[in-house]
């Protein structure tokens, strides 16, 4: 055991000095050989603490007294929504299929990202109908398909995509369906649904 229970001399007024740092040791502070120094709080630490408390007071005053917008969630949200600036393209779209490669590639990207979740990547259908055959439930004209994508078919579980896909993206994906998917052979085709459109 290393414990040395030397009773410190309480009468001694002089402080013991820690030889390595030249700081005063507290007398009578010894626990299992651990001593404690009489160092003051580091000034920067003290100021950090005070500063944080000032910040806290300032923050609560802004909330409780000044009702600042950025601390009130509802106002913050309303401000964000009010300041939304979007460049929704205003030009009218012609409801015709696009056949250029760039549009078809973009259509494919949208298909894989969004549509494939229910219609499968190869269009064979699973939760949603098979998109490779010539049977259509909601029509196969560009206008019909555009309406289906825009408004969804809620009762069957397809959501409206008007807030997720721009009109251009909708036309592109319709083009991809008609130009690439229809007539292809998926791995596991779902049985035909809807009416045959030749």
């Amino acid at each position, binding site marked *: *055991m290393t*414990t040395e*229970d030397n009773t410190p001399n*309480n009468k001694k007024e002089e402080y013991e000095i*820690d030889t*390595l*740092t030249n700081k005063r*040791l*507290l007398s009578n*502070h010894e*626990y*299992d*050989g*651990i*001593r*404690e*120094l*009489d*160092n*003051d*709080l*580091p000034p920067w*630490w003290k100021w*950090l*603490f005070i500063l*944080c408390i000032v*910040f*806290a007071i300032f*923050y*609560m005053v802004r*909330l409780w007294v000044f009702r600042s917008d*950025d*601390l009130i*969630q*509802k106002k*913050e*949200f309303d401000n*964000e*929504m009010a300041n*939304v600036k*979007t*460049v*929704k*393209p205003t030009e009218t779209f012609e409801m015709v299929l696009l056949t250029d490669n760039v549009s078809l590639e973009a259509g494919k990207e949208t298909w894989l*990202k969004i549509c*494939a*979740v*229910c219609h499968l990547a190869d269009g064979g259908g*699973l*939760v949603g109908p098979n998109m490779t055959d010539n049977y259509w439930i909601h029509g196969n004209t560009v206008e019909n398909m555009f309406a289906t994508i825009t408004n*969804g078919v*809620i009762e069957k*579980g*397809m*959501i*409206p995509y008007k*807030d*997720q*896909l*721009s009109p251009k993206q909708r036309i592109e994906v319709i083009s991809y369906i008609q130009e690439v998917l229809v007539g292809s052979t998926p791995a596991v085709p779902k049985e035909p649904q809807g009416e045959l459109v030749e």
Partner: protein
Amino acid sequence: MELQKFTYDNKITRLFMNATILWGIVGMLVGLIIALELIFPLMSQNIPWLSFGRLRPLHTNAVIFAFVGNGMFTGIYYSTPRLLKTPMFSELLGKIHFWGWQLIIVSAAITLPLGYTVGKEYAELEWPIDIAIALIWVVFGINLIMTTVKRRTKHIYVAIWFYIATFVTVAVLHIVNSIAIPVSFLKSYPVYAGIQDALVQWWYGHNAVAFFLTTPYLGLMYYFVPKAANRPIYSYKLSIIHFWALIFLYIWAGPHHLLYSALPDWAQALGVVFSIMLIAPSWGGMINGLLTLRGAWDKVRESPVLKMFVVGITAYGMATFEGPMLSLKSVNALSHFTDWTIAHVHIGALGWNGMITFGMLYWLLPKIYNTKLHSVKLANAHFWLATTGMLFFAIPLYFAGFTQSLMWKQFNEEGYLAYPNFIETVVQILPMYFIRVFGGTLYITGVVLMIINLIKTANAGKFIQSEDDEAPALHSQSHGVDKGHRIIEGKPVIFTILTLVAILIGGIVEFVPMFMVKSNVPTISSVQPYTPLELHGRDIYLREGCYLCHSQMIRPFRSEVERYGDYSKAGESIYDHPFQFGSKRTGPDLAREGVKGGPIYKPDSWHYNHFLSPQKMVAQSIMPPYPWLISRDLNISTTSKKIRVMQTLGVPYPEGYAERANDDLLKQANQIAKGLRDGGIQVEDTKEVIALIAYIQRLGTDIHKPANNQ
């Protein structure tokens, strides 16, 4: 002065030490498994108890309560008697404490993978185990406090202050947060609901970090750092100020886990400001630890023990600066629900708790085996593996969190979400998950080296069962007059009571208005209790740990409202015992999953196929399949009991509804199953998946009801 002779018992220290090492490696290996499961979702091989949602609570509970828990007890049972010059109060209580705690861990390791869970993070264990924890914790507390009463030193040292604060606060946190009404032997519903439950839970969760992972380890630091370095503590004054400031302020900061949630603005603000005020008190501990090494830095270069302490304390300083920063609303808006949080907590767990534990073990084991450490070289290798492992773990996750959050928030010029499909943001960060696994592997390799090193050390030495010491009796010591803080240092029971008062204030100030003032939880008339089938579905949702990857809390941001639907209101979750807001979005938020016409609605058949094989529906999904939901029958024998417990908790089911609840249940199940069968899916009414689909399709729909009725 008459010297009294007594002995220190090393056997209990050794027991806790062995348990620390055993549970440490178990907890970390489970962590490694679930990290791999996030990359290889099919890894669980359709075995329910191996799935991510079941194992993640096991990982967190094992690391926090088994590894760090046993680690703290190792240090406390070694240092307390030596600091107070007396044996522990009772060897028997010590043994009950040890074996009781291990039994609790074993029961957790069995029940959590089997899906018995309350569904509240870090408080998942069911009520019989919760009661056992409370009892064993009190045994520990009696042993600790009575030892301070029977001491032979006039004053209690700062390490003991922290031990006392740990005992007192964890007892309060655990009991208040765990109050629940049992449905059966391993199923219960918490008494709190919704946003109130969330406030209590994060008061608990945040302060579990504070008083289970921080204060006991600060106590260990105050003992083992000066011992190992043979240096005096830097500043006694700092000890006093940072101790009281820390325990008083910490308890208020829980609401920072609920920023931008449906929690009222005033409570969120308290969470922010008390977190900011915590920086200095936390750093007080870091300063006192690091500056104690002043004049001994040459030793640090040579000693793996001190090196580990330095990295541990530095990690503590980093984590306690980062924490308050994450509590600022603007930072939290970015960091919350992402891997940033996971990185942050692992700086604490791997850096602070891990390193302090390892350093303590390397110092302690040779001491009680009366020998030298087998290999300093091996310990140095462990040090470097642990340090680099921690960095390889955390840095990629910071990057992942940042990246994914920015992708969630990104709009294109036309005003559409740039990444409307959640999976895109997951695929983007998947490489970071690989690097995390690499970092974790390095860290665990280091622990394996430690185990080899410690076993060889033990084999080379001879275990000292007990050590003799002597000291004058307390009453025979000279009684100078104490001033200031010295007075209560000489009165441990008063000290304990003052600690209790300090940690009660914050909780009371936040809870009382939240529970008493109605305007804090504005009710919405269209919000109704769950149907019996939905309630069962919700229990399956809890059982499978869905809340660990899916939040149910849409924050009031444009990006979230566009992606998920209207932001979540406090009144929507008033029947949610427990709340299921979640804390991480490994998958999308589900708060409005059921809203037809909402941006993330999916039909029943989609959910059915998705539970069977997520990858069939979303090729790159990292969600594991849940085929057992489809083969298992729903247990409807508990329905009436569940309804009755809910009624006791104040959920307004009509009088006598418990008895006829199963009629409604079967009707609703038939409706859903029939719909699926019409779509060509062969499924019976009574399968678990039907209940889960019913629950999912209910989520978030209530506030849309009046509109739908028009």
